[in-house]
């Protein structure tokens, strides 16, 4: 397996006076957020976090508001200076990087899309999208040519000369997305990019991100507080609470085996049939099941398996890696659907 795009080890960010002492202090670092605030007047926004993001992966960080997601994602490029720990991007330690090195990282390797867009109001769409290239020192015609290409890619063709305040929220975020893409970075960080948009536009933008990810294959770290967004986009999801990691895994891991009550509550509203794979409802093979029954892959989403199972007169076999691991029948699917009905 090739090396991860981003690797985070024991990352801490403590806001407040004397915060740098807390990660190293065994007693203080064990305190809960409330106790810590009371004792030291410090807020530990990120506590001892470690994870890897593989190349080309969409890694989602999820948690309620105030759980430290924005702080975490800003620590990755030191827009917020981490208190301690290690952040490796392509194997290079970001925390040890000098000013020039850090600038190069931000200019060429990692760019970011913000919740409130962060567009420059005095610049046209074209100049906003080409801003990063200008900062990098690209000539006017070069950067405009590249920006036009990107503007078309994000679906804003014809709006090159508009100013941000003439655009709707969704279009402004397309500009933000275009600006992040223009520099052709390896990794794009998203900090709740669509939470300021209304649901319809949000759905389109999510589709847009999925499309771009398919087309360009960039590594993405995506922060959200919306579980359905996380499940839709994320290859893997890290759930945070009060700065601490609670569980990290694929969407169906989280829904199928929540690590604790907190996550269980979180995922209780999810339509399980849309998220879980057959793996979670496979039962041991019964002797009565004919060996020549239909076979489905264990990673198939339950909803997609419904027609096959319903049309089969006998249970359906489930295989994983070419080996039959068990069977499912109508009852197992109906029980999942039933649970979703009663939860709703």
């Amino acid at each position, binding site marked *: 397996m090739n090396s991860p795009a981003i690797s985070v080890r024991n990352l801490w960010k403590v806001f407040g006076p004397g915060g740098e002492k807390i990660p190293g202090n065994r007693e203080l670092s064990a305190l809960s957020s409330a106790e810590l605030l009371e004792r030291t007047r410090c807020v530990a926004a990120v506590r001892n976090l470690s994870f890897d993001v593989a190349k080309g992966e969409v890694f989602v960080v999820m948690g309620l508001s105030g759980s430290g997601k924005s702080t975490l994602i*800003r620590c990755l*490029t030191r*827009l917020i200076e981490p208190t301690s720990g290690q952040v490796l991007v392509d194997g290079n330690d970001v925390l040890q990087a000098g000013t020039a090195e*850090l*600038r*190069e*990282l*931000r*200019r*060429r390797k990692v*760019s*970011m899309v*913000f*919740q*409130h*867009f*962060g*567009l*420059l*109001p*005095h*610049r046209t769409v074209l100049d906003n999208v080409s*801003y*990063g290239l*200008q*900062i*990098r020192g690209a000539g006017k015609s070069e950067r405009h040519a590249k920006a036009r290409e990107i503007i078309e890619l994000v*679906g804003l063709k*014809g*709006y090159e000369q*508009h*100013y941000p*305040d*003439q*655009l*709707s*929220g*969704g*279009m*402004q975020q*397309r500009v*933000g997305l275009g*600006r992040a893409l223009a*520099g052709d970075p390896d990794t794009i960080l998203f900090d709740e990019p669509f939470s*300021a*948009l*209304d649901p*319809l*536009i949000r*759905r*389109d*933008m999510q*589709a*847009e991100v999925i499309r771009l990810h398919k087309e360009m294959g960039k590594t993405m770290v995506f922060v959200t507080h919306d579980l359905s967004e996380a499940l839709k986009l994320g290859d893997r999801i890290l759930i945070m609470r009060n700065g601490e990691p609670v569980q990290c895994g694929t969407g169906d891991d989280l829904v199928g085996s929540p690590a604790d009550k907190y996550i269980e509550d979180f995922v209780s509203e999810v339509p399980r049939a849309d998220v879980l794979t057959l793996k979670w409802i496979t039962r041991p093979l019964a002797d009565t099941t004919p060996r020549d029954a239909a076979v489905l892959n264990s990673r198939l989403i339950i909803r997609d398996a419904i027609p096959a199972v319903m049309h089969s007169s006998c249970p359906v076999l489930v295989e994983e890696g070419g080996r039959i691991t068990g069977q499912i029948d109508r009852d197992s699917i109906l029980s999942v659907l039933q649970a979703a009905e009663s939860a709703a």
Partner: protein
Amino acid sequence: MSVVLQERKTARPAPAPVSEPRRRPSRRTILLLSAAAIWILGFLVLNGTATLALPASELTDLHRSLNQFNAWVAANRADNPLFLYVFTPLRSAVDAVANLFTTTFAATATGLRLPEIGWLGTVGLLTWIALAVGNVRVALLTAAVFVFFGIQGLFVEATYTFALVLTAVLLTLLVGIPLGILAGIYGRVARVITPVLDFMQTLPTFVYLAPLALVFLIGPASAVIATVIYAAPPVIRLTAHGIRRIPDNTREASDSLGTTGLQRLLTLQLPMARRTIVMGINQGTMAALSMVTIAALIAAPGLGQTVVRALQSLDVGTAVNAGLSIVLLAIVLDRVTTAASRRAEPGSARRRQAGPQDPRRPPGDCLRRSPGHGAVVQDCAVGGCLPGGPQPWSADCPGS
């Protein structure tokens, strides 16, 4: 301590507590009565001695030492290094700039009461400047007012005042904008500068004319320097404010692209603070005009002198006439710099293209003109949403 406590303890039960408030007069009554008593005593003792009017200009020690200092300055102006290398060059530089503008706009150095470019040249040039930084309306106003100066026979005085204001404003910006930028970027600079600015603005203008005249002699140079001191605070404050006011998320977005400090200044901070900075220039200009007028007291040429001289001979007509000219000049300067600040608003260019439109759209106004609606329709079309969904413009409020 314990003694006091004990005294109190023993003293407390003795007097009847109920009658206490009535018997003891209040603190204020006591103070008033004692003041009256002292006053009467003083009257009795001092009556007739040392209570007559003070001699008007009796020399005190302070007077004397200041006059000595004055004499010292006069004697050492030519060879003291501070004067030789700081004050005198500064004075000549300011004089040179002031001269450039006065000969261009007001009167030639040869004493001819006409500017180098002719009075029509002055009117034309200023009108063109007004048009370039403002709009047609203020350009017409400028032309009309300067022609009016000519008709009133105050053209040279008015243009002298204008030239000095221009000199002072240029120097103010030269000093004020860099300082304002530093104060806007570095909190520490702001903390050092703010009390100084407060002090400069607390000083009544009258107060620093004399010391300035002492150091820089009377004339246009000290008038300009006094004006710079008076006009710089608003420029510095507003520049710093304009930079500090930039939203964190915009700055963060710029940083996330790897800007250097200088790039951030040039591509983000200055453009976004531009409107506030131009407002500062407007405030500074108005301050400069009022100070240049007052600086007539230290022999600054211009309308101020006309007013001062006319008042000395109770020539009300001339004084009011010149006063009116000052007001008109103030209006021109204000209108032109305001028009310039309007134009400095982001995106004002497109507003001019799109025709007149109130730049201050109310915050709740989510409905846009046609380009906005087109935008929303396009937005949906790109993402593939179906017509007949929720009202498309509900998505059109960036703040929501």
